[in-house]
């Protein structure tokens, strides 16, 4: 596999841009773990995280011409993954089936839905999508408010406001007792 032998990322991006699927597969292999982490934090479901991760990579493939190569490919695909997951979350919110989805969701074999991990995921599910994205970027990804604002395409003060509101909501949910179904108030 000639393209996979290319070690530097700009060469892989260039090869993928000219339509080389093996170069693109190599880029996917390099960033798939990070992208799956982001989509899992946003969706709270292992199956949905896989679907959204694949959708994000396909979107990246379609938009490779727009990647100017000025920054890191990883940062670019991270931004696409976050926004793809955000749009996905907003779409299922519009359909109003989030709580049904939570009841049926496949959080993964390591997650005890009645335990702490389950409660944290349930609490994140009860945030609005924009607030959840702000928490994922700042708490889990370690971005500051200005960097998160850049990823989300909004003002820094908007991110600060969303985080403040999300923290208040998460504290209220996670401080309360879990109900019989493992959900919190």
């Amino acid at each position, binding site marked *: 596999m000639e393209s996979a032998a290319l070690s530097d990322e700009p060469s892989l991006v260039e090869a993928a841009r000219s339509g080389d*699927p*093996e170069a*693109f*597969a*190599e880029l*996917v*292999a390099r960033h*798939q*773990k990070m992208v*799956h*982490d982001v989509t*899992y*934090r946003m969706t709270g479901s*292992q199956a949905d*995280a*896989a679907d959204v*991760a*694949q959708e994000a*990579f*396909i979107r990246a*493939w*379609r938009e490779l011409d727009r990647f100017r190569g000025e920054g890191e490919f990883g940062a670019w695909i991270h931004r696409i993954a976050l926004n793809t997951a955000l749009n996905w979350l907003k779409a299922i919110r519009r359909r109003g089936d989030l709580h049904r989805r939570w009841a049926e969701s496949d*959080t*993964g*074999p*390591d*997650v005890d839905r009645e335990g*702490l*991990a389950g409660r*944290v*995921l349930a609490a*994140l599910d009860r945030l609005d999508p924009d607030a959840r994205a702000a*928490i994922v970027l700042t*708490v*889990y990804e370690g971005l500051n408010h200005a960097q998160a604002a850049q990823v989300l395409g909004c*003002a820094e*003060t*908007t991110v*600060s*406001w969303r985080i*403040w509101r999300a*923290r208040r909501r*998460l*504290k209220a949910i*996670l*401080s309360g007792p879990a109900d019989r179904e493992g959900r919190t108030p």
Partner: protein
Amino acid sequence: MTDPELDRLLKSVHPPGRDADYWTAFPGETARRARTQRFVKERRPMGRRWFVVLAAALPLLLAGVFLLGRVQGRRERIEPAELSAALRIVSELSTLFPGRIEAVVFEPSGPRIVLNESGSAPGRQPLLIKVCSGGVCRTAVTFSGGRLRLGGEDLEVLARGDHDVMVLGRSFGWTTGQPQDVRGLRLAGQVLEDPL
């Protein structure tokens, strides 16, 4: 619960692991699907796609214009619930950005905060104004002398006496008690009694 305690709690949950076969298969499968999607995308004629989008959007646009017109006709008062919600949010934001809030604009998409750079407390009379333009209404809490952009107009908002609000635009002046329709805008204002 403090912020660091919350962060520790959130970070205690890690994404579940997947087996090695999944990570081996995912790149190839994704690249295969991507190639198919690109092919489908390139085959669809651009002109026809735009036609379909426009044809689908036109009835929605017409319905939207009709509904917005109706909403504009209704939203000319500052409702008590709206007032108390605005006060509560501004009061909470004051603790988050002490002495830096110049205005809080309640957009249809959510609150937008306007901060002053100096960080000095305004110490002026808080005012609530509502501006409707093109069927969309925006409410803002600001302070006497505050300048903000609402409904496409640069406005200066002033307290006049104990009860009246004066709004100065580039080409008009308006005070509470006057007819609400001014230069394509519909205005309402109220002096806030509660200290922020």
